[in-house]
């Protein structure tokens, strides 16, 4: 029985050879066919010549987590043949360039080999070697279209959209596409037993990556000063912001920019610029990854202590140190929560997909200004750089930015004396003033010891008074961060707690477990400090598995420290190899844990994917 809209393919290529456009073409075709689809780009930290993979999971049921068993491998990289062939599921297929005989590294008895003489066909029609390399991707896409029953009209349309104005390129691509398509139709088992059929699941959906959505959030939030230093995987937030700003933020009359885009000399400068701009009254942000946060640590403490808003998008990658810059991880949680020396605690937001990136980016600015403090939005490479099918982003025109307590010139005129850090409101926030507004509101901002009036102090009680208020202020934030998403199942005997992009894998795992007769409750945390529902959920469970993508169980650590739940309620499942999480890893992790008798605090599940 053929399996319709439920399979996974993997494309193995060399980076810098144009495979990205073919990957996108396939993804978009399936998307436009109305079928839920997910793409994971596993690329190297290199510009040209190293192995790169792209995984496409087609799931009519809507499962978008990473698949681990591939029905079809497109093996275009000789360096990785041996490894790639092993990843095909038993009974699966492998497409290769049959210009040359089947390489011996590709041997496996339980896999079917689909040969397409790509190079041979291209050599005949395309004289220029570099163009041949690029067109090969389109050619095998044509074969895949035939094999997977893709809608060729959509494929053609997409090619037209890409190359519409460049007739020569358009023709070349079209030709390669059709050659690949025809060859497969004529010579291969088309369609394969797993294949696509049109659906209508994507009417209200878009295909977008998290970094683009984050940038759009910053635009809609009214951010005007963007400061950054290039770093993978955070760079594309800034590329997108710049592109959107050039579109939406140029004054139609004067042609002048309603934004300032500052490529800083490093991350220390980037966060400094954000702090300076926020202090002056602009909505300002930076985007970075782990190494950048390490470098920003000192100034983050300044913003915390002097109470200056700052929005930081941390697109997490695999650490420590340079680590694996093009691999994902959730390993900056603890660092961001407590960044900088001395006693500090910061607001964290955890989006799980591009749609939430958009919403939470906006929320970041609101919270940063409301609480006059740094806010970290912790995205990651998987969310940020992969293409996700999510609900269309929506905007409520009634939205008014929450600029927090900022005294206007008139308000200043009406009060007797202004002090920076008092009086405080119920959330322990005091009103700030902006420079350039009114002499009555001027004060001296400092990272050194200060009292509730804003004056310099070295007196313990005065210093402590401010520090204690900061702690209470932090706790007040709990009711303003996005609530945890909680789903309960009848008869559940334990819960899964997770965060960010683990969402899809955990939900799928829960369905799998449910099908196995193991109902599981679910909570996805979306903000820190934790709202009361977080503690309540955990308390309600006999115990929970905390699923996360780092070695040291950092979310569990934060839950342990910042809620009152007993430690033995929280058991840890981690997968930190750098690839997006799969449901299989979660399910296996849970089975593995359930088999263990004793669960030691420091016993971390180490699983290689």
């Amino acid at each position, binding site marked *: 029985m053929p399996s319709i809209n439920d399979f996974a393919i993997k494309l193995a290529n060399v980076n810098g050879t144009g495979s990205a456009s073919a990957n996108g073409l396939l993804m978009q075709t399936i998307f436009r066919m109305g079928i839920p689809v997910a793409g994971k780009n596993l690329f190297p930290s290199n510009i040209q010549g190293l192995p790169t993979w792209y995984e496409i999971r087609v799931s009519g049921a809507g499962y978008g987590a990473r698949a681990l068993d591939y029905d079809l491998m497109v093996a275009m990289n000789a360096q990785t043949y041996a490894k790639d062939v092993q990843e095909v599921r038993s009974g699966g297929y492998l497409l290769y360039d049959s210009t040359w005989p089947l390489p011996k590294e590709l041997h496996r008895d339980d896999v079917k080999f689909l040969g397409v003489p790509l190079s041979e066909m291209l050599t005949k029609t395309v004289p220029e070697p570099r163009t041949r390399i690029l067109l090969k991707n389109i050619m095998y896409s044509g074969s895949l279209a035939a094999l997977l029953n893709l809608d060729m009209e959509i494929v053609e349309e997409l090619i037209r959209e890409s190359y519409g104005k460049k007739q020569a390129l358009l023709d070349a691509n079209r030709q390669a596409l059709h050659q690949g398509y025809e060859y497969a139709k004529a010579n291969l088992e088309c369609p394969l037993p797993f294949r696509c059929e049109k659906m209508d699941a994507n009417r209200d959906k878009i295909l977008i990556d998290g970094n683009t959505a984050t940038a759009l959030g910053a635009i809609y939030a009214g951010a005007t000063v963007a400061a950054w230093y290039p770093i993978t995987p955070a760079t594309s937030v800034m590329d997108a912001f710049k592109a959107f700003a050039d579109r939406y933020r140029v004054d139609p009359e004067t042609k002048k920019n309603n934004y300032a885009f500052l490529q800083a000399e490093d991350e220390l400068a980037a966060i400094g610029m954000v702090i300076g701009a926020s202090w002056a009254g602009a909505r300002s942000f930076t985007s970075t990854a782990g190494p950048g946060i390490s470098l920003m640590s000192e100034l983050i403490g300044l913003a915390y202590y002097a109470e200056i808003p700052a929005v930081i998008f941390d697109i997490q990658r695999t650490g420590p140190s340079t680590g694996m810059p093009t691999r994902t991880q959730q390993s900056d949680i603890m660092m961001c929560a407590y960044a900088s020396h001395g006693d500090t605690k910061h607001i964290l937001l955890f989006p799980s997909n591009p749609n939430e990136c958009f919403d939470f980016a906006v929320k970041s600015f609101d919270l940063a200004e409301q609480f006059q403090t740094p806010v970290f939005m912790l995205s990651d490479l998987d969310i940020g750089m992969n293409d996700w099918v999510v609900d*269309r982003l929506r905007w409520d025109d009634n939205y008014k930015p929450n600029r927090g307590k900022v005294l206007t010139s008139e308000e200043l005129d009406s009060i007797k004396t202004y002090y920076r850090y008092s009086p405080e409101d119920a959330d322990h926030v005091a009103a700030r003033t902006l420079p350039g507004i009114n002499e009555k509101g001027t004060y001296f901002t400092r990272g050194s010891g200060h009292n509730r009036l804003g004056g310099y102090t070295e007196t313990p009680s005065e210093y402590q008074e401010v520090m204690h208020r900061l702690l209470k202020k932090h706790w007040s934030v709990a009711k303003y961060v996005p609530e945890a998403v909680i789903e309960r199942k009848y008869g559940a005997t334990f819960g899964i707690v997770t965060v960010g992009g683990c969402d899809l894998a955990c939900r799928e795992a829960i369905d799998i477990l449910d099908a196995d007769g193991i109902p599981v409750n679910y909570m996805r945390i979306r903000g820190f400090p934790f709202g009361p529902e977080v503690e309540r959920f955990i308390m309600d469970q006999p115990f929970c598995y905390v699923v996360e993508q780092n070695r040291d169980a950092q979310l569990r650590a934060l839950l342990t420290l910042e809620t009152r739940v007993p430690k033995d309620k929280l058991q840890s499942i981690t997968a930190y190899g750098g690839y997006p999480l799969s449901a299989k890893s979660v399910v296996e992790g849970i089975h593995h844990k359930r088999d263990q008798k004793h669960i030691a605090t420091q016993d971390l599940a180490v699983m290689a994917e």
Partner: protein
Amino acid sequence: MPSIAKPIVTHPSLEKNSLGLNLRAYEGAMSTLCAGCGHDSVTAAVVRAAWKLSIEPHKMAKFSGIGCSSKTPTYFVSGAHGFNSAHGRMPAIATGGGAANRSLISIGISGDGDSLSIGIGQLAHAIRRNLNIVYIIENNGVYGLTKGQFSASADIGSKSKKGEANRISPIDPVMLALSLGATFVARSFSGEKEQLVPIIEAAFKHNGLALIDVISPCVTFNDHEGSTKSYLYTRKHDYHVTDSDVVFPVDELVANISRNGHTAVTMHDGSVLHFTQTPEGYDPRDRAKVFAYLQQHQQEGKVPTGILFIDESQPDMHGVLGTTEEPLTQVPYETLCPGSGELEKLMEEFR
């Protein structure tokens, strides 16, 4: 009374400026620096320059890093917002502040430690961006606040209080700035108010980063014999290369030459910077020649002072960025947010 309380910087003059404010209105809190510290004189010069220019106090934004020098913004223009940030990070903070609100009149006060050691990267890049700011380095050749270690501006052979001679080649902020394409480079001496005040005035007028290296002796740790940053040494070796004055309005200006035959430069707001003294053949707009001149005179042991270089033709940071004239902090949210309609349209591109 045992305490060495320093009086608030006072001036006999109760003269009013065009805003109707007297000097007092430009003063700040009482200094907590050592009695006799050069920095206090720089403070006094800033007070006077701001007063003379009739800057509205609250339009000013004062930035600094960490150090004795960086404490000084508390001591002038208390009617302005101040930001005493972190060690070496003032340039970035000021860049953000200036980016957000270009109508602020920014002044940054730093030290040789703050700007030439930990902060040299940020200084260099603020220069590149030509951030619109008066950037004063109160240069004493040591880290005052941490008790007198040599800073990167200590000259070879200059002796510490304990008598040890520095042997590492110094960073001269003036040479550095020139090589980085700075558009306004000056040097002065905290003891030379007559020269320093007009330099600060011109710096405020400059459209871009105006770097002023002020030799400002540390009486506690670097004012002894053998130090090349002492009052005595500086006074002895101070060599006025240029003297200058800012004049407005523009009338007598012909082809960048002022009455007296010296160079004149028209500033951004139409006022004119008249050089009242320059050496024969010295053109403060010729970077290479200025560099060579300084190199030579410094080799001879002189400390050349004055506005040494100026290029008023370069765009400042906002010019480069093409930012709107209105401060970004004042662009209404409605203008900034594209709205739901645009988003709906945009979503079609993600299908």
